[in-house]
């Protein structure tokens, strides 16, 4: 059987391998999570930011369980290497995201890095941060065809109900 060839091909494998090994990958992601909680908006290679997003959101869900929860406190003390950020997590971020059911982060791609490697970069930020917004969601103007047709339909319905 060709067991050795199967080990060399990686078709369909979804898990990323970052850094020097599994422990190094966790350390990398832990540093990124600490930076995100401190600065609320960071720029990183897209693969690392994408990987880190899941861990950051789960950490916030743990924080929502409350300060007194033993498991939440252990998670926070593992994932945040700077201990003043544990206070920030439980006192600032947990109340901020209490009404939201999920998706506390926003991941957006930015132009490739300027250095020699031209790496695919992304900016990841916590929603509700005090900084200027990165995207302005635009509403379509009233002058588009679809909006004019919808406006006409609404007026017809109103006339029909008025009569």
């Amino acid at each position, binding site marked *: 059987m060709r067991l050795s060839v199967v080990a060399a091909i990686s078709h369909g494998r979804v898990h990323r391998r970052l850094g020097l090994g599994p422990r190094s990958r966790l350390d990398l992601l832990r540093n990124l999570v600490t930076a995100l909680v401190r600065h609320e908006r960071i720029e990183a290679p897209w693969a690392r930011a994408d990987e880190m997003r899941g861990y950051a959101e789960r950490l916030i869900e743990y924080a929502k369980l409350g300060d007194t929860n033993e498991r939440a406190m252990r998670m926070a003390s593992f994932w945040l290497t700077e201990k003043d950020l544990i206070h920030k997590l439980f006192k600032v971020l947990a109340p901020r995201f209490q009404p939201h059911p999920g998706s506390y982060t926003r991941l957006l791609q*930015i132009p490739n890095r300027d250095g020699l490697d031209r790496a695919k970069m992304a*900016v990841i930020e916590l929603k509700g941060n005090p900084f200027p917004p990165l*995207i302005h969601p635009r509403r379509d103007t009233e002058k588009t065809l679809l909006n004019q047709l919808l406006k006409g339909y609404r007026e017809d319905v109103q006339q029909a109900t008025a009569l």
Partner: protein
Amino acid sequence: ALVVVSCPLLRLHGLLQRCWGRLERCFLPGVSGGQSPPWGPALAVQAPAFLPQPVNDASESSEAPSLLDSVLWMAAPKKRRTIEVNRCRRRNPNKLIKVKRNIDVCPECGNLKQKHVLCGYCYTKVKAETRLIRMEIHKKEGGPFNAPTVETVILYDGEKPTEKDQGKRIIERARKRPSWFVQN
């Protein structure tokens, strides 16, 4: 060997025979008598009981046949590739660079951007302003590891905190509010 010499050399012959007899006795006593020769082995070296025979069979089977045979076995082009064939290969669509059709104009600044990527100009603008805000935050915090336990709000020239911003830390920026940073 017995040499027959002429009469005037009889004394020389006798001398030669005596010298030869002395030499024989000195250097070849084993030949003349039954004694063991005084010479022992000049040099004694430790060596295995038998010398290993050079094994030719395995090496001959593992290596490729000799140089002349291998030259006949390797792949080589038969004819020169013509320029028409070369052009077909070099200009085949899978070798050309793909045309990007996902480039748009940013509605804010008018620069070009890819559809799924943020506009470079707008992002640089926001990044510069964020950097200045972070410098103000750093001045206010005064040192490392002083993350506050309250939210933060940024106010520009001539702005007052509203009732929504009651319990928050205020960061002042000494400039007019930019048009793209809408106050919530």
